Structure formats: structure tokens, C-alpha cells
């Protein structure tokens, strides 16, 4: 039955996306041209990658608000290294970005796992800490396009079978998450931990460890996106991707990932991210000021979460869990 509900949820989203593009098409046919749709997908790729990581975190009843700050710090570090030592090969920098992101994710995860601190508090705190560190290491200065090596800037934009590498990375990440959630024990344990932590313990799943792994995955993807973001826009400064964590959470909530944990799918998160991406790319086309973006993201979160409330009926269970914790 849950599966049927999920299917309908994805169908609704897909229909909404089609309706949206059709609406734009009636006024601006150029928007629906394949080349432009590919551009919109490429533009949404960072959001898609981060939404995948956020999805597993939310599945385990946690939330990661530090992804944007993590992205910005990893991006700044690799940009500074590239500016100082242009000779270091790009794959090494890429690995460094992913590794740094994973370390920052593991800090979140360990605080949640070992000290049992609520995830919202942990990541609200690390969000400002990571962002502050960018200022400390860069002294507030910018790394601009001319300071980066051509190889550094070209990778995400390089053309491969007609699509930029950035888009391909997003596709690979989505495929990887499809495999992870449907074919691996770890993927299933994310759902088990979020669906019923007590039952998960009795089936031999370490709840805290699973949550920590979810945070590490989310952090590693944020690090990866950090390099891609900085290289694509060819600039790094303290405030890049400011507030982007809200878009990532919005994409997941719109995609039907239940904030109470345990319910969600890769397809839903992907469609949620695409929905937001199309809205954002369509705004300038239909001549609406970009200042509308923030309110639209917020409105979308509220509407989606109200829409999801059917799947949140299990709230009583959460309260019970809390009572058992204090006993």
C-alpha cells in the first residue's frame, strides 16, 4: 500500500512538472527545446546531487542543514590549493574535496551518534562553524577565474556525448543511489532505521552508526558539489551557495521524503529537485524578478509538507520514542 502511495506521489509530481513546462511552453516555446532542457538539467545537477545525500539523512529521521556551508568550505579549499599550486592534478583535488566533505559529514554524524544531540541543533551549529572557517582561511578574499587553472575550470563543463560532465556526474550519482537503496543492505537499513528504530535494533541494525553513515554520504556529496560549483562558476568566496541548504531540504520534502523518516524514494527526490530547478530557471524567462525565488522555495516546502501530512500520521510513535528515551 505504501508503495502504491509512493507511486501516486511520483506520478503527481511528474504530472505537475509536465503541466508546469506546458504552461511555460504556451508562452515561451523556446524553453522546451531539448538544448534548453539539457541546460536546465545541468543547472539543477548540484541540487540533484545534494538532494540524494539529504534524502538518506532524512530517511534516518535526521536533517543536514550544513550541506551548503560544507560545499562552500570544500570548494574554497580546493580553489585556494589550485590557485597556489596549479600543478596538482584535478583528480587529486576532486578526491580531496570529497574527503573533506566526508570528514565534515562525519563530525555531524559522530555528534548525533555518540553524543545523541538532536541533528537539527548539530547541523545548525556546524553550518555557521563551517561557513566561518571559510572566512578564516580566505581572510574574506575571493578566488577569481584568472587564479584558477584552465584544467580546474574545464572539467565540469567538458562535453561528453553531448552533455556536460556535471550532468553526467548527477546521472551517475542518481543511478548509484538507485542501486544503494534497492540492492544493498545499507540502503535498506536507512529505511528500517527511519521507519522504526526499535525494530531496527532488534533486527541487528546499529541505529546511530547508520545515521552517521548517512551524514558521511551527505557530507561527501556536498564536498563533491563544492568542487563542481566553484569550478563551474569559476569563483569562490565566503557566501557561495548561501541558503542553498533550504533548497535541498525543499527538494526532498517536495519529492515526498517524509521528514518523520522511513518514507521516500530516489525518484521522488530527483523529481522534487527537477521541479524546483524548472521553477527557478523559468522565473527569468517569464519575467518574474529573481527576488521571488526565496519565497517560492519556502511556499513549496510548506505546501509539500502539508501535502505529505498523510504520511506523517505516525507522529504518535515519535512521541513514544522520546518518552522511552527519558525513562
Amino acid at each position, binding site marked *: 500500500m505504501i508503495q502504491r502511495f509512493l507511486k501516486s506521489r511520483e506520478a503527481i509530481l511528474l504530472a505537475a512538472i509536465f503541466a508546469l513546462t506546458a504552461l511555460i511552453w504556451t508562452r515561451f516555446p523556446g524553453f522546451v527545446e531539448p538544448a534548453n532542457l539539457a541546460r536546465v538539467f545541468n543547472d539543477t545537477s548540484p541540487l540533484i546531487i545534494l538532494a540524494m545525500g539529504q534524502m538518506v539523512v532524512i530517511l534516518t529521521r535526521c536533517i543536514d542543514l550544513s550541506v551548503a556551508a560544507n560545499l562552500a568550505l570544500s570548494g574554497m579549499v580546493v580553489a585556494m590549493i589550485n590557485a597556489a599550486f596549479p600543478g596538482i592534478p584535478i583528480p587529486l583535488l576532486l578526491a580531496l574535496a570529497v574527503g573533506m566533505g566526508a570528514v565534515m559529514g562525519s563530525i555531524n554524524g559522530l555528534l548525533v551518534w555518540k553524543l545523541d*544531540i538532536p541533528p537539527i541543533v548539530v547541523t545548525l551549529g556546524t553550518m555557521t562553524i563551517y561557513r566561518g572557517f571559510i*572566512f578564516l582561511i580566505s581572510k574574506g578574499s575571493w578566488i577569481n577565474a584568472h587564479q584558477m587553472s584552465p584544467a580546474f575550470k574545464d572539467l565540469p563543463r567538458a562535453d561528453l556525448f553531448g552533455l556536460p560532465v556535471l550532468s553526467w556526474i548527477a546521472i551517475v550519482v542518481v543511478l548509484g543511489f538507485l542501486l544503494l537503496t534497492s540492492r544493498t543492505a545499507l540502503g535498506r537499513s536507512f529505511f528500517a532505521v527511519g521507519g522504526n528504530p526499535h525494530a531496527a535494533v532488534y533486527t541487528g541494525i546499529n541505529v546511530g552508526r547508520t545515521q552517521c553513515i548517512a551524514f558521511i554520504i551527505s557530507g561527501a556529496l556536498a564536498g563533491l558539489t563544492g568542487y563542481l560549483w566553484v569550478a563551474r562558476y569559476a569563483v569562490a568566496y565566503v557566501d557561495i551557495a548561501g541558503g542553498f541548504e533550504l533548497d535541498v531540504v525543499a527538494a526532498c520534502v517536495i519529492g515526498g521524503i517524509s521528514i518523520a523518516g522511513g518514507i521516500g524514494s530516489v525518484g521522488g527526490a530527483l523529481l522534487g529537485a527537477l521541479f524546483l530547478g524548472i521553477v527557478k530557471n523559468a522565473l527569468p524567462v517569464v519575467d518574474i524578478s529573481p527576488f521571488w525565488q526565496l519565497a517560492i522555495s519556502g511556499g513549496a516546502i510548506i505546501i509539500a509538507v*502539508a501535502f505529505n501530512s498523510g504520511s506523517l500520521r505516525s507522529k504518535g510513535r515519535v512521541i513514544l520514542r522520546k518518552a522511552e528515551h*527519558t525513562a
Partner: protein
Amino acid sequence: MSLSDRHIPDRLTSPLQRLFRSWEALLVVVAVAIFITNSLASPYFLNAWNLSDATFNFTEKAMIAFAMALLIISGEIDLSVASIIALASTAMGYAVQLGAGTPEIVVIGLLTGLICGAFNGALVTGLNLPSIVVTIGTMSLFRGISYIVLGDQAYTGYPSDFAWFGQGYVFWVISFEFTLFLALGAIYTVVLHKTNFGRAVYAIGNNPTAALFSGIRVARVKFILFLLTGLMSGIAAVCLTSRLGSTRPSIAFGWELEVVTMVVLGGVNILGGSGTIPGVILAAFVMGLVTFGFGLLNVPGIVMSIFIGLLLIGVIALPRIWSRIAARRA
């Protein structure tokens, strides 16, 4: 030995012992220590006017923290408070453009806060949604509306008598804001610790189901708490707008973090169920003294935010690490 022979104490610890071991006592010690360090580190610290200026660092945030403390004790949270300030300030600025006088501006600011609080409360209690997600959503929605209205513009030209709320002094160095902070602190102390409503807040935070079965209108109490938080954000918006004399959509950006940190530093359990208002008042002083001291030492604002982030996590983590070490020893 019969049962009556055994000495059974009335309480395990004397009230005095409890007072010394309390979180509030620790905060007093920390505040005094920071005060002494600051006065040694900077020759400009011990000056009545400087200290009076320092209170502006925390009074507005602390007003919101009082209501937020009640909300967190009841097991909910409101992350949209800073955005409510932005929206209320924008509404006030808009009213000024239409030629509103000071009384109308204040009423509009408070009303906007109340409406935003009611919106949060209705979503959380009416539709039974988790407050974290709802207020993450309204956090972007409220500030987003400010951006739609203002874009990259700013509202200025507030009437000169409006400036009194943020810049006026009641007596010598005692500002209006500081007086309001103390008065609200006293009111909230009475409400939380001496009224049925306060007991209901604790009961809901400890076990909402049991609270419901003991006749507490859980949804209504929570709705009132969201209203209060909105109203306090409205009051803070009046004070802040009056102090700055202008409105930008980025006003009070990131304040939700500082308000939550202040509440948690004040000893309120982030999971709900326990905490005191005097603790929050002391936490406000501690945070105000620290930021003021950093300011005198020319520490940039973003470094202070690292410190606040560390403080938020550290304050929750340290007692847990401590109790774990204590448990291992025993």
C-alpha cells in the same frame, strides 16, 4: 529493625545545595569570569556608557528567547523568528511610505509578528505538522516576501519620534530596550514558573499524550506559544528597526541561531520538558558580554559566529560527555 526506626530525609539535597549545583549558578560564575577577563583585557570595558551600549547586543534577541524558551520546553521550535523580524520591519517601512505615524507603525509591526506566529501555529497545531519543517519553510517564505517587496532597495525615513524605542533612555544609561528586556523577563518568569499555563507548558514538553489525558488543551497551548513567539519577534522588530532607522530584507539575518543558542545556553533542554527563564536571562548576559568583549578586541563578526556555533554544540555536548565519564567512574 522496624521501619519507623529508619531516618527518612524530607529531601535528598538541601535547597541551598541545589541552588549551588544548578546550571544557573554555573552561568553566574561564567558571567562574572567573563566580566573580569574583559575588564582586564580592555581599558574601555568598565565604562557605564560602553556597558550600556553592550546591552543592545542581546536585548532584542533575548526578548525572542523568552518566548522561544517556552516553545522549546513544550517540545516545539520556531526557526522563522529572524524572518518574522524582516517581514514585520518591511511592513512597518511600507506603512511609513504610506504616511503612517509612530503609533500606527508600532501596531503594524506587532500585528505582523502576531499574524506570522498564528500562521506557524495554525500549520503546526491545525495540520499536525512537525514544527522544524514548517518553520524552515516559513523562514524562507517570510523573508522571501520581504525580498519581493524590497528587492535590493531599503526603507528609510522613519519619523524621528519612532527612534525612541531603539535609541531612547529611560533614566541615565538605562535604555528603553534594556528596561523592556527586564520587564519581559520578569513577566515570563512569573508566567512559566508561577501560573497554570506554565505548568501546562512543562507537562506538554514531558509527555504530550499524558498532558492531553490530564485535561490540558495541548494544541491550544502550543498555538498560544507560537503566537507569543511571533509577538516577541514583532516587538524585537520594532526595537531593531527603530535602532537602525532603516529596513533591508537581510535585516536580522541568522538571528534564529543566536536565539536558539541563547535558550540552550540558558539550560533549556532542546528535547523539551525542562528549563527556566532566569537561566535564559543569565545566558543573554553571558552572550552579550562575550560578543561585546570580542568587539572591543576587534574580532570580526563571522569569527564570533563560529564561537556561537561552538557554544551551541558545546553547551549540549559537554554535560553529556561529563555524565558519561561520571557514569564510567561509578
